[in-house]
């Protein structure tokens, strides 16, 4: 399948050049026993864009993102990140590549036994090349926390933080290695609408500052409307429909309409 046939839309940042995609997925299949979760999923992510993948529970969103970061190995298909096929990579190369991918987990996934500072230092420990000195580690951690507005919480334990604060610390942690791609798994789930909105704005701010490409997995339409440059509707393991929020809003298909109620 030719990429030009698939999607050639310019990036949202007004960059008119056709760029090679940051993430490139073709015919991705994954099943667990008789449960066929992904059935030939295709996707491209271009530099600097916010791609929202939306779908119902059990449509394969989580499996998709886990495939993206190599937590789950797909049964078949091509999955390239920054032109590297992650299904072919050795563990060491995979770890290298992972420094380019930030991941914000659904439940924040902060390490309970560590302070906020240690949580943020954790991604650095295996990549000393990225941080030459310990004083720089400190400043890096402080900078990251400051960018999410939680510098005062640096020595607290995760259990002392509220849900929204946790999410922000997790976001700071995902940014520690200055990734080129950030994957957000349900960034607003479990948060009240106001906090959710704060998080969404934070994500957008970071996006604007750093110009990273983002994949946002969600079922929250408000979130999608604000954030998305482009959307993919995931139904039964395939990209059922895609386009901007406006395009999809006008889509007459019943299954697509169901998301906009």
């Amino acid at each position, binding site marked *: 399948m030719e990429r030009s046939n698939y999607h050639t839309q310019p990036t949202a940042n007004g960059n008119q050049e056709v760029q090679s995609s940051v993430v490139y997925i073709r015919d991705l299949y994954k099943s667990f026993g008789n449960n066929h979760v992904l059935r030939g999923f295709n996707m491209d992510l271009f530099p600097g864009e916010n791609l929202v993948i939306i779908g119902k529970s059990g449509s394969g969103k989580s499996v998709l993102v886990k495939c993206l970061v190599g937590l789950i190995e797909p049964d078949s298909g091509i999955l390239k990140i920054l032109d590297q096929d992650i299904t072919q990579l050795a563990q060491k190369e995979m770890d290298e590549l*992972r420094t380019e991918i930030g991941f914000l987990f*659904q439940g924040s*996934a*902060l390490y*309970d036994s560590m302070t906020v500072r240690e949580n943020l230092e*954790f*991604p650095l420990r295996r990549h000393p090349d990225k941080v030459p000195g310990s004083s720089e580690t400190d400043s890096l951690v402080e900078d990251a926390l400051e960018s999410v507005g939680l510098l005062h919480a640096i020595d607290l334990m995760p259990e002392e933080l509220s849900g929204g604060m946790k999410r922000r610390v997790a976001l700071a942690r995902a940014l520690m290695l200055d990734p080129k791609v950030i994957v957000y798994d349900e960034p607003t789930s479990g948060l009240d609408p106001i906090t959710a909105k704060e998080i969404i704005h934070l994500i957008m701010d970071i996006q604007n500052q750093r110009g990273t490409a983002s994949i946002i997995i969600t079922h929250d339409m408000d979130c999608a409307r604000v954030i998305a440059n482009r959307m993919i509707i995931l139904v039964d393991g395939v990209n059922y429909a895609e386009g901007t929020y406006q395009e999809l809003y006008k889509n007459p298909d019943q299954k697509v309409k169901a998301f906009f109620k």
Partner: protein
Amino acid sequence: MPSTITLPKSLRTYLSEAGLITRFAIRFGKEVFMPPYELREFLRQCYILGYKSLPLVAVTGFIMGLVLTLQTRPTLMEFGAEAWMPSMVGISIVREIGPVITALICAGKIGSSIGAELGSMKVTEQIDAMEVSGTNPFRYLVVTKIMATTIMIPILVILADFIALCGSFLVEYTKGAVSWQLYFSQVFAHLDFGDLMPSTAKSFFFGFAIGLIGCYKGYNSKKGTAGVGRAANSAVVVSSMLLFIIDFVAVLIADIFYEL
């Protein structure tokens, strides 16, 4: 694919569980020698799992020594053999009671805490988060914990043995006015390497079993808070049972080496 033999479901569950635990142990055996070594985390786990268990182990050990001596004393006195108390208590503590009681206490304390910790880390995707940030969670979480228990349980056993003997000495001292020197020279008079070495060796296996089962149950915990609870619970149950099996096997093996 239809299976040719249909086994009872419980037996099938048991066998697959045993297979999975073996596979987990083999994975540990492979990864333990692979760099990077998580030395700092290992020391931290030694502190948390070992040092923090010391008060509990010390108290139980002390009470075991007291109780054992108080219970045995009247019987031996009937035979006029109080002089045998120190060596008898010494041998039973060093050979069996010290290692087994300590290991059981630790299976309860450490096994459940490992099971619950790893279980909740699994459920809240912390293990995934670790993997994503380029740290091998198996090496960081599992290998360090199993190594820590394998090293720390024998150390706890030695300390527990000593504290239990102190407890026993206290009884002898108050009831029989036995001096410190006499008591301990009596204890060592009948202790052999055949008592000390197998029990120390089996303590390593106890520690390994506690760490292995705790980690296995936690690492493979099912989703949800119920899964965490079950992981902690079955970590304790399975490792306690395994301890007795190891103990039995250890006695048989020790007999072969030290009988003649």
